[in-house]
Structures are given as C-alpha cells and as structure tokens.
C-alpha cells in the first residue's frame, strides 16, 4: 500500500527540497485514505496530483544544482575557445568566413543534388511504372528511342496479364484553349484514363474513374483552371481546343510538381487524338510507325527485366519484318538520372552532373577544412603554454583532444550559422543556373539532421589533426622557453597547401575547358544565317492564305523573304530511309533527315549553295528534284552530285544542288546526311527574314497585323531563330556557370587560407626580417625570400594539377563528337594566373613585413 514509485521519483526529481517533505507527506496521507476506497483510483489520483505540482513555484532551481567538476571544465573550454577567437580576430575571420563559404557551397550543392534525386519520387507506384522503349539499328548505328507504335497499346492492354495499367502519351504540345472570348493556351498531353490511376497526379475535383473517358473532355491543372475561369467552378464548362473541338472540363488536378519528368498543364483523352487526327487513325495497324510513348504500371511481382524479355519480339512478330526493332522497358527510377543510351546500353545521364557537382562540393568543403587545419597548427605555439599548463595541472591528453575538437566544433557551428543567410541570399541569384526549383526545407527533420550530422563531421575532420598535434606538447619543454612547436607541422602543412591548390587549379582548368567547348560549338559554322530570322507556326488559316500573306508581308518593306518548311531551323522532325542510288551498298540502309520546303527557303534561311541551284518555280520538273547536303553527298559517294538520280522508294528524283551542312540538331554532334524536297504537305513552319538594318521592333509591329489579319483565331506568336538556337546551350551553359561559380569560391577560400598563413609566417619571422634589414637587405630581396615558400608550393600544385586536369577533361570531351582541342595555352594561362594570384595574396603580407621599422621589433629584447 505504498504510493506509485515512478510518480514519487518524478516528484523527488523536480520538487524543491524545502517543500518536498510536506508535499510528500500530505500526498501519502491523502493517498492512503483514497486507497481504502479504490486502490486503482488512488494511484491515478496520486500521479495526477504529482503532475499538478510540476509548476514554477515547486520546481527546484536546476541552475544551482550542477555537478561542478566536469561541467565546469567544459565551461572553461568554451570560454577559452571564445576568448581565443576574439583575441585573434583576423584568423578567426579567415577560419570562420572560409568555412561558412565552404559549408554554404556544400549545402547548396547537396540541396541541388537532393532535388535531382527527388525526380519522380512522389509517385506512389514508382517502383512499378516503366516506359516502353525500342532499340533500333540504322546506318549500322545502334539507337534507342522512346517513340513507339500505336497498335502496341491494344496489344499490351489486351494480351499481357502483367500489365496493371497502361497509357499512351503524345509528346506534349501547345494547344490553343478558348473560353468564350478569352484566348489562351498551354502545353498538354493526350493520355488514356489509366494515366491518372498509375501516376500520382492527385485530382482536386472529379473522379479518377470517370475523367478522360469521354473523348471530348479535358482535365486542367489548378493554376490553368484559375487562369481560364477565375473563381468560377470549372467543372462542366466548355473549352474550345485549337479552335476546332469543344471539350468539357471533367476534372481539376493539383499542379504538376517541378521535379516531375512528365509535365503538363492539362490532359486530353488520347481517344480525342484518334478521333480528330487522320494520321493517328491510319497508324492503328502500322507496326512500324513510331510516334508516341507508352507507359505501363506492372503488376506486383513482375520485374522490369522479365517484362522486357516478354515484349522484346512483339514488333518483329507483328510486322513480319525479321530485322525490325526490339522493345524493352525503362523503369521510372532511372528516367531522370539515367536517360542516356549508347549502343543500346543505358550508360548514364543527369547522374553524371550530380556526381560531378557532389565531388566539387566536397572539394570546396575540403579546401575550407584545410584552411582551418593549417591556421590552427601554424598558430599552435601560441597555444603551447596553455596546453603545457593544463597538462601540468593534471589534464590528460585525451581531455585536451576533446578540448580542441570542441573548439573546432564551435567554429564549425558558428560557420554553419553564418552560412544559412549566405544560402538564402545566394539561392535567388543561382536561379538561372538550375537552382530555380531548389528550396530549403529546414522543417524537414531528416534534412536537418543530415545537415547537422554533416556539420559535426566537418568540424571533427577539420579539428582532428590540430587536436592531435596541439595535445602532444610536453610541458617541460614548452615552459622552459620559447619553442617553435609549429616546426614539426611544417611538412604536413605544405602538403595540405599543395592539395588545396591542386584542387583549385584543376577546377580552373576544367571550367576553362568547359567554356571553351561551349564557345567552340557556338562558333561553329551553322550553314545558315540565324540572325534576323523569325519563325511562326502556320495554322490552317494561315496555310490557306499563304500566298496573300507572303505578298502582304513583302509589301510591308521590312521583310526580305518568306518561306515555309516541314520543320524549324533548330530541329529535325523527319528521319527517312528508303533512298537508293547507283553504286549504293545494297546491305546498308542509311537514314536521312528530310525537310519538305517551299520556294525561297534558301534566301529566307540563308543556307549556302555548294553546287547546282535551289528549287525554282521556273522549272516544272522541280517537283521531283532533290537537294542534298554535303554530308549526304559524302554518304552517296558522288563526285559531282548535280544530275544524279536518287530513288526514294520507287520514285526517281534528280539531284539539282548541294548545300553546306546546316546545324539543326545537337550542336555538339557532326551534321548527318539530309535532303530537301519540294512538297506541299506538312509545311507548317513559316520563316520570315527581316531586312538587315531595319529596326526590329518596327518590323515586328508591321508584321503582326498582317499575320493576325489572316489568322484571326489566335494571337501573333513568333520565335527568333537565333534565340531558339541559343537554347540548345542552356544545359551546357548551366553546367559551365555552376562549375565557374564553385571554382571561384574554391580559389577564394584557398587564397584566404594562404593570406592567413602568409601573415602568420611574416609575424613569426619579424625579428629575422628586422636583422636582415639592419644588415642591409633590400625590400625586393626580403619580398622574394618571404614569397618564395608559397610560390614553390603553388608551382608544385601546378605540376600535379595540369596533367590531372588534362586527363579528366580529355575524358569529358570524348563525350562530344564535335569538340575543341585542349591547347597548351589553357595550361599556361591557368598556371600563370595561379602564380599571379598567389603573389598578390602573399605580397600584401610580405610587403607589410618588409616595410616595418626594424627598431620597433628589435627594441623589445
């Protein structure tokens, strides 16, 4: 019949001693009385009462009750650490500032890496979703593509029990969306009803079992719905798509997250595409017409590999073509990071950038840590006496190691705190280089704990070497007289400086070469003139009125020429095989990019003729004429191409001209063979060449009303070809700029460290310098003497970094077919600038040291 023990222990733990006896006594007495009525209730009541005492009046003051021994020691460590930081403000600044930049850089990169790794992570079924792809074999080249054939959908859906859900998906296009008088547009996909069942794009309104079923319906994302309908409820409202089809809104989706491989503003049923496009309808039984994507959610227990084996031969069996391509599936987890295929093998993709930047981030952090190590060990003699006295009083080495590790943890933690505002300030500035969707989520416990663990690890790594070194001093030697305890650390310190500069110089070389490669591709001859060239999409209305449009545009006086073709200047839409010519190897089946053009395409785009002439209305026979590029001429093996007959399947075509290779696709790859034909179909890309030396704004203002007159259903929308071309470099530019930023940071941090070391060296040699001065040494001699140590270190770093950089960058360049050479001047410039930066950094200190008045420093002895 005693009160609950735990409650009592708790009371004794927190309650003031002078109240405890009375309260315990009263509580026990009350408990015993209650116990006679109901033991169970009494216990609860006792515990509840105890809890009710847990209030300020009754809680004892813990502040005065600490165990003075161990805690006091830590307090002393802490105090000494702060005093040291405060006393040597310069060093502390270099340490902390360098570390905070290093930590900020590393954290920013880890945020970016985390964002890259989070792609498609939000799909609940991510482990089961796969994309159907195919392996092709053309021109003796093993290719891999995501475009597949239409009939596969019904085949997989009907005959493969492994398939839980399946959807077709087009590539996503811009579609006009009109609501009453409001004309808008957006990018959307055609998808099947299963799409929303397999992917985690949650519906806000509408039922997942009903949306996308009825062909004339549409599902909008929330933000598009607001843009179209404002506050009104969009469900059941009508939208006119592409000025042709009335569809009803049946569902509203949450906006697609930015870290999604599939992105869209709205979804239309794929059946609508089938109903409204003759091309698609005709493709229903074509097993070799590849123009859409298929996504499958597999049933539990079916692996991607087994399913790949199951579907491999479908195309061959269905089409009867024994050489046809084979099918396989690519699992969702690899879509974003491993998107590249070489020779049918999944070799990599974005993961390479992720790895590269992860390494750069670690390097920058390592450089900052090295600063900390070097400055701590260099200044070790300043702390030698403290160590000696602590040891004499009875400190053990273990305790001293704990003390110095603690100091480095304090410094790292301060640096971490300072890095937070740096991160917040730099995130918006980095938006242009791939950070626009990267966010700091400090409320995420796992991110926070990983970050803190990283910070602690950084502190321990940075602090372990100084801690071991500092704790080694023997008191007798230190206390007897002045020591140069730092001597033993000279070699390791030099090695660390060399490591630092090797990292930095390698980064500089890499960045220069990345930018040179981009510039190289930008500067390559394009084969046409992208400036002053705009392209417009020719809607059915514009196509119908093409001739009057052309005449009216030319009449504005701003337009040099106008033409149209099946594809824009910056992309290839058609790859055709089936060409034969005299002397062709019957076993090869080369593939040609095909562009269907109109008259004046040559003067509008500015392509350059090498042989023959361009299509002309004066020659009626030009309907069966062919233009080929230089690469095609090489493939066909013609000496003089003009006049040769090339057969396209059964139709003979005469080559009338050869034009210079035009860079349309990847600017880092060589231009493939291409042909041009005069044909009236598919020519929906309009090109307008604006005259040189006219005001672009005025020209556009003159063109706009003309185009809108013939195309009343939508607003004038145009693209500058040079801008479109520049977009091809956005990915490469981002990588280059990011690498550049972190290179600058690493150089900055290295120099900070060197600055600190130089000032320390100059300080240590004050007396030596003074005596040399008294003996007659000149400023120049002294400057040389003091700078030499550092210059030697940097030269050694150069000798390590230059071959390393060459090795890595040479490997990197192999990825590009069209690549720059690594010329010697890159190394020369890098080496020279590294030396220049070193001298500049060091000289601030050495010059100060040599200018000092020797009387002042020698007087003291």
């Amino acid at each position, binding site marked *: 019949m005693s009160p609950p023990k735990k409650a009592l222990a708790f009371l004794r733990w927190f309650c003031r001693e002078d109240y405890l006896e*009375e309260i315990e006594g009263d509580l026990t007495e009350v408990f015993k009385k209650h116990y006679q009525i109901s033991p169970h209730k009494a216990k609860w009541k006792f515990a509840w009462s105890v809890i009710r005492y847990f209030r300020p009046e009754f809680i004892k003051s813990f502040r005065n009750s600490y165990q003075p021994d161990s805690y006091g020691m830590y307090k002393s460590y802490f105090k000494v650490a702060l005093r040291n930081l405060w006393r040597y403000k310069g060093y502390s600044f270099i340490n902390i500032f360098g570390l905070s930049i290093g930590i900020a850089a590393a954290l920013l990169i880890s945020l970016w890496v985390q964002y890259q790794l989070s792609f498609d992570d939000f799909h609940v079924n991510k482990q089961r979703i796969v994309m159907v792809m195919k392996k092709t074999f053309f021109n003796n080249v093993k290719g891999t593509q995501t475009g597949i054939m239409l009939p596969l959908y019904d085949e997989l859906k009907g005959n493969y029990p492994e398939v839980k859900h399946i959807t077709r998906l087009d590539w996503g296009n811009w579609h006009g969306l009109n609501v009453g008088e409001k004309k808008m547009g957006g990018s959307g996909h055609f998808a099947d009803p299963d799409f929303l069942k397999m992917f985690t794009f949650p519906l806000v309104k509408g039922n997942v079992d009903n949306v996308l079923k009825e062909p004339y319906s549409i599902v909008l994302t929330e933000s598009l719905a607001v843009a179209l309908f404002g506050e009104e409820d969009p469900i059941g409202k009508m939208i006119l798509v592409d000025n042709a089809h009335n569809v009803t809104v049946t569902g509203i989706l949450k906006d697609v997250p930015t870290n999604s491989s599939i992105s869209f503003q709205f979804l239309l049923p794929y059946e609508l595409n089938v109903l409204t496009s003759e091309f698609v309808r005709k493709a229903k039984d074509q097993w070799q017409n590849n123009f859409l994507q298929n996504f499958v959610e597999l049933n539990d227990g079916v692996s991607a590999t087994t399913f790949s084996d199951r579907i491999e031969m479908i195309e061959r069996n269905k089409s009867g073509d024994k050489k046809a391509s084979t099918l396989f599936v690519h699992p969702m987890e690899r879509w974003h990071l491993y998107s590249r295929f070489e020779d049918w093998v999944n070799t990599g993709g974005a993961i390479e950038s992720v790895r590269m930047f992860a390494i750069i981030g670690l390097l920058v952090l390592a450089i900052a840590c090295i600063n900390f190590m070097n400055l701590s060990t260099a200044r070790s003699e300043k702390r030698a006496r403290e160590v000696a006295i602590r040891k004499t009083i009875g400190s053990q080495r273990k305790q001293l190691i704990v003390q110095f590790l603690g100091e480095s943890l304090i410094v790292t933690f301060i640096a971490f705190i300072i890095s937070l505002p740096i991160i917040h300030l730099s995130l918006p500035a980095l938006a242009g280089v791939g950070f626009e969707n990267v966010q700091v989520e400090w409320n995420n416990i796992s991110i926070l704990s990983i970050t803190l663990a990283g910070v602690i690890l950084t502190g321990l790594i940075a602090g372990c070497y100084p801690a071991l070194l500092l704790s080694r001093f023997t008191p007798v030697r230190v206390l007897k007289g002045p020591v140069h305890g730092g001597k033993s650390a000279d070699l390791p310190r030099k090695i660390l400086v060399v490591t630092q500069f090797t990292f930095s110089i390698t980064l500089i070389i890499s960045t220069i070469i990345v930018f040179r490669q981009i510039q190289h591709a930008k500067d390559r001859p394009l084969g046409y003139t992208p400036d002053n060239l705009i392209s417009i999409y020719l809607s059915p209305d514009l196509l119908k009125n093409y001739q009057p449009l052309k005449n009216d545009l030319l009449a504005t006086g701003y337009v040099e020429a106008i033409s149209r073709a099946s594809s824009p200047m910056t992309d290839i839409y058609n790859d055709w095989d089936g060409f034969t010519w005299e002397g062709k190897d019957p076993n090869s089946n080369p593939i040609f990019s095909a562009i269907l053009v109109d008259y004046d395409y040559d003067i509008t785009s500015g392509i350059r003729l090498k042989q023959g002439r361009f299509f002309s209305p004066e020659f009626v026979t030009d309907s069966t004429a062919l233009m080929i590029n230089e690469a095609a001429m090489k493939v066909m093996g013609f000496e003089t191409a003009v006049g040769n007959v090339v057969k396209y399947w059964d139709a003979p075509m005469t080559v009338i001209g050869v034009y210079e290779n035009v860079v349309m696709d990847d600017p880092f790859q060589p231009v493939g063979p291409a042909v041009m034909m005069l044909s009236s179909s598919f020519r929906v890309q309009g090109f307008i060449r604006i005259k040189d030396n006219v005001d672009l704004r005025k020209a556009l203002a003159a063109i706009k009303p003309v185009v809108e007159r013939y195309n009343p259903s939508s607003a004038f929308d145009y693209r500058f070809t040079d801008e479109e071309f520049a977009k091809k470099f956005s990915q490469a530019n981002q990588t280059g700029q990011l690498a550049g930023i972190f290179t600058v940071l690493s150089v900055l941090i290295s120099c900070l460290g060197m600055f600190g070391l130089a000032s320390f060296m100059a300080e240590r040699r004050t007396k030596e310098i003074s005596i040399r001065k008294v003996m007659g040494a000149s400023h120049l001699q002294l400057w040389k003497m003091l700078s030499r140590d550092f210059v030697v270190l940097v030269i050694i770093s150069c000798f390590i970094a230059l071959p390393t950089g060459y090795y890595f960058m040479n490997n990197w360049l192999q990825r590009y077919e069209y690549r720059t050479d690594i010329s010697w001047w890159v190394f020369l410039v890098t080496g020279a600038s590294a030396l220049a930066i070193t001298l500049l950094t060091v000289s601030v200190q050495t010059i100060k040291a040599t200018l000092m008045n020797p009387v002042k420093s020698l007087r003291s002895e």
Partner: protein
Amino acid sequence: MTQHSLGEFEELVLLMVAALHDEGYGVTILENLEEKLNKKVNISAVHVALKRLEDKGFVKSRFGGITEDRGGRRKKFYVITALGKRMLDAQYELRTSIYKQIPKISFG
C-alpha cells in the same frame, strides 16, 4: 486595500487556516474545505495557495510530529499571522459594508 491581494480560493484557505488554528496542515485543510465546499479539491491546489499565503506573509508554518500514516514524514502546520488576520478583517468589513448597501429587495 493592502498591497497584497487575495484570490478567492486563497481567501478560503486562509479562513480555514485561521479556523483550524495551529491544527491545520495540508490534509486537514483539504478535508475541511472539501466538507464545507461540498466538492473535491486537489491537494496541490491547497499547497499552491498555502505557499502563496506564506510568501505574502499571511500565514506562518512549523514542522510538527511524525505519524505512521505519512510514511515517516513530518506534518507542516500553518497558523495565521497578524497581517493575515488584518487582511481577513478588512475583507470581511468590505464585504459587509457593501452588503449593507443592498436595498431591501424581495425575490418572493
């Protein structure tokens, strides 16, 4: 008014301390209050009030004898101080004087 104020429950506890004169400790005060008020009171509430009264100087305390019931812990007896008594008198006077001002009303 004096500089210290008196809460309603505090006043009740103080009255009880005065009534039990030198025999009042936590449990007796609690039980008597429960009887008078006809409702359950938690012992911790009594202690809070007692500590506040002691801080304000309205009561003082002393340790008493050990009894078996309390597991060997001493009782702490409370007794009202002169200041406490004055406070009670003032409260009583105040209440009665206001009460007297109530006109004769009948709720019959």
